């Protein structure tokens, strides 16, 4: 028995992971875990947690779950980033060694893309889309909960790698043969493949769910060309997800087979072809870039008209550019590896296709500027992020065009220029967009407004910090510094710019703290949103109370044009003054279920077993998955009646029922 325990300790906590940072993380997890269990038990909240949150199928609650996870992951990824920047501040000064640095840059990238940006986007999809298109829920509410729990348990599996067994350390792209067992023993890379596979299933399902929701569940009269632009961007993003994630799943699954069962798809020996993985990965990876940027474009297309008090300029060209980006996004993946010897014809083709995709993007920038032109711009935090986005994203796009110039890319590839470029578009585009959307839709999600003054402090810290961090990195690229070096020697002239960059990163960290403080402060003291329309909004979600009742719309509105709610307000109408008691009908709502949670848990157990190749545990988890799916397939009792009286009562308390 002691031998078994020794084996267990050695496998789960190998010497590599007994570093101060890991032990600190172990301790924090333990303390936080005990704290959560204590509070839940002390205040008898276990049942509440299970009934209200863990089993919920309500898109508004799932949105909040996604948001909490995304902010927690933003914290984790941000701490990773600060560790990286601290290590690089000075030449040959390494608070964390190579081993840990390699793990941290891998987890930073993976977490920020898959476990921060994606759930943040899904939080806003869930919170907004059904309300915006005049629907009571998404098309498949249970599937929606399954998506969330697959994501959540995938994220958990990825995150425990830091303290149990060791993190992946081959970069967020996980190129073979570096991920091969021979070069990368230990469970880290298996964690990477399995957690992304599990979360990837959830993401694919979300794509299907929102595609169907938008195609099938729009309110009567809302034709495609009357949809709010955020709904359009969600539609296009969902289509991208559905076709982009399968190549990733294939690449990850085959790599996992290579590692776990000794096949040779991508290995160094036995005729494996590492470059095949690179192709598959970026066949997913480039559409993924647009999967995370298009929702931000959608958010800005909502924020700009609202705060400019003016209709969106060029609706049709906005739609044309979205759809053309969707198609072009699949034709540019080779620009991630011009320097892999594909030859001048292939490189020239993909260089040109990359330039081509800048055209629809440019169209959108001009349209936003001309939406502001002739408007009345109110400077709120949501609008500030949009106003920071335009200059930032244009610079990021311009440096991207320079990378699409193939011969220039030969010099810039894998240098800090690339690092600066993709942070410029991912932070300047996606993160600014998501934060703008967060401040914009927060009242709708939670019923209170985030304090504007504190929000502006956070905004300036974050945006200034961003530029101070990444402008020097462009120059570092021109100085020949390559990515993913854990330290660098003195004498290359790299240290000055690195110090500046690190200072900027900590300023961004301060911006994050300001954001969290803003949320916590406003939770207690923030202004309540009693009207449901704090920003003088234009689209249907603002016609509802904040937060929207469980059934969203007591009666589904009929839509007559773009910006339906604005048109209603111009005619002196609201949803409330149209609703008579006899209009309210009884409804059926989807019933809560514990199945999605158990499914996620089974995947987690199975994944954990596979990481350590403890087959009984893996098989047990797999059987759990099958059991959950069988249960789901035969569970016909999935609806709950909601009597008309209850709806009348709820609407009455909001004062939204005509006497």
């Amino acid at each position, binding site marked *: 028995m002691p031998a078994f325990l020794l084996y267990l300790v050695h496998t789960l906590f190998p010497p590599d992971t007994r570093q101060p940072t890991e032990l600190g993380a172990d301790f924090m997890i333990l303390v936080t875990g005990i704290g959560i269990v204590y509070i839940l038990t002390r205040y008898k909240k276990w049942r509440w947690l299970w009934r209200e949150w863990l089993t919920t199928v309500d898109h508004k609650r799932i949105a909040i779950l996604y948001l909490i996870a995304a902010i927690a992951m933003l914290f984790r990824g941000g701490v990773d980033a600060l560790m990286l920047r601290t290590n690089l501040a000075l030449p040959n000064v390494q608070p964390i060694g*190579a081993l840990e640095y390699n793990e941290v840059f891998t987890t930073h990238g993976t977490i920020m893309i898959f476990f921060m940006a994606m759930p943040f986007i899904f939080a806003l999809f869930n919170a907004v889309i059904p309300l915006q298109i005049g629907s009571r829920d998404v098309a498949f509410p249970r599937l929606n909960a399954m998506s969330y729990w697959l994501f959540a348990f995938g994220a958990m599996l990825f995150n425990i790698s830091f303290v149990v067994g060791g993190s992946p350390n*081959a*970069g967020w792209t996980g*190129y*073979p*043969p*570096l991920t091969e067992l021979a*070069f990368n023993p230990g469970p880290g890379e298996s964690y990477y493949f399995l957690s992304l596979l599990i979360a990837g299933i959830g993401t694919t399902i979300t794509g299907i769910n929102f595609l169907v929701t938008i195609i099938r569940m729009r309110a009567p009269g809302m034709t495609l060309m009357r949809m709010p632009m955020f709904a359009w961007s969600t539609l296009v993003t969902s289509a991208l997800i559905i076709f982009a994630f399968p190549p990733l799943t294939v690449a990850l699954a085959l790599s996992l087979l290579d590692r776990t069962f000794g096949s040779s798809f991508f290995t*160094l*020996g036995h*005729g*494996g*072809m590492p470059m095949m993985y690179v192709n598959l990965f970026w066949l997913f990876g480039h559409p993924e870039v647009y999967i995370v940027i298009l929702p931000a474009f959608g958010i800005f297309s909502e924020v700009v008209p609202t705060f400019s008090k*003016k*209709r*969106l*300029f*060029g609706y*049709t*060209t906005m739609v044309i550019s979205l759809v053309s980006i969707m198609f072009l996004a699949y034709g540019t993946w080779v620009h991630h*590896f011009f*320097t*892999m*010897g594909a030859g*001048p014809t292939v*490189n*020239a083709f993909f*260089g*040109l296709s990359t*330039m*081509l995709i800048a*055209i629809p993007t440019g169209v959108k920038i*001009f349209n936003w*500027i*001309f939406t502001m032109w*002739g408007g009345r*711009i*109110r400077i709120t935090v949501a609008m500030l992020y949009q106003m920071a986005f335009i*200059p930032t994203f244009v*610079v990021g796009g*311009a440096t991207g*065009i320079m990378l699409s*110039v*193939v*011969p*220039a*890319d*030969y*010099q810039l*590839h*894998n240098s800090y220029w690339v690092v600066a470029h993709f942070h410029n578009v991912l932070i300047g585009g996606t993160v600014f967009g998501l934060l703008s959307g967060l401040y914009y839709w927060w009242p709708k999600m939670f019923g209170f407004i985030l304090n504007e003054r504190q929000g502006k402090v956070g905004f300036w810290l974050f945006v200034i910090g961003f530029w101070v961090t990444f402008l020097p990195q462009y*120059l570092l*690229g*021109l100085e*020949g510094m*390559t*990515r*993913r*070096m854990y330290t660098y020697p003195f004498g*290359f002239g790299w240290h000055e710019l690195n110090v500046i960059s690190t200072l900027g990163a900590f300023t961004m960290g301060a911006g994050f703290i300001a954001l969290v403080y803003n949320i916590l402060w406003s939770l207690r003291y923030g202004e309540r949103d009693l009207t449901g329309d704090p920003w003088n909004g234009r689209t249907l979600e603002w016609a509802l109370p904040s937060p929207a009742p469980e059934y969203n719309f007591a009666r589904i509105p009929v839509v007559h044009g773009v910006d339906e709610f604005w048109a209603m307000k111009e005619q002196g109408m609201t949803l409330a003054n149209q609703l008579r008691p006899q209009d309210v009908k009884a409804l059926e709502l989807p019933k809560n279920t514990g199945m999605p949670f158990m499914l996620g848990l089974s995947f987690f157990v199975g994944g954990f077993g596979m990481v350590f190749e403890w087959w009984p545990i893996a098989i047990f988890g797999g059987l759990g998955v099958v059991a959950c799916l069988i249960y789901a397939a035969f569970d016909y009792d999935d609806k709950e009646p909601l009597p008309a009286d209850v709806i009348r009562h709820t609407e009455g308390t909001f004062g939204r029922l005509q006497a």
Partner: protein
Amino acid sequence: MRRRVRSSRRAYRMLALAALGLGLLVSGCGPQYVVLHPKGPVGQSELHLMAFAAIAMAVVILVVFVLFGIAVVRFRDYPGNRNPYTPHWHSHKWLEPLWFIIPAVILTVIAVPTVNVTYALAKLPPSKDPVVINVTSLNWKWLFEYPNQKIATVNYLYIPVGKPVLFHLTADSPMNTFWVPSLGGMEYTMPGRILPLWLEASKPGVYWGHSGQFSGIGFEKMFFYVHAVSGPKFTAWANRVRATARPMTLTAYHQLLRFNTIGAESYSSFPASTWPSVSHGFTLRGGMYLLKSNNPGATAQH
């Protein structure tokens, strides 16, 4: 209201100053900006194209910044703003197509030289006879074999000035990229593939190179040094290495395969089977990326 206008003007002046300072920082940059100070024709033409694209992009950035700045300054929501408010203006017959045309024109201007230079750099200059160097990236070191001089080095190499050098790149390890920023762009080293890359030094000097692709724990140490010397000096160096250094045996090669970092090494000869060989874990299967000719090292095996 007037105060607000003035403060925004001040903001613009500060922005302009910041842009100027940044420009000085970049243009007045010292020799550490290796990409901006190429020492050979490949790096030179890459830099020219980069600068051309940067200027075109600066035009775009300028146009957008000016339009955006005007919009923000003129159409702020403050009492007494006399600028026209047109809440229902949402489309324009000429402006919207123009959004497509402006970027398309600018990108065409960049695209034409991009394609030309991409094709031009894929070919060796025809009249000159290149020096061939076979490069293998190992964990975590660089092996350079000179098939014509019959010598090999680790982590440093000599090349003659004014003569194109054709590098054949492969790996007996995870991927790396071979990059000497002073001479020109990088190319991947991948197991099971041989990729060509040509560079040329037009000035004598010592230029550092590094791997651009993360390859594990010793990746940071994958620096190497390129000594560009005159033709006679190059020949003399090769002869000296052949005369004085020890030969590389297969055992020595296997020692190089170990996962570690080492300093510079020289060998008076190398076993033909090291380039690329079935005995070290991979077979060369060919394929669309494999060079078909001009590859004396590959034909020498077995």
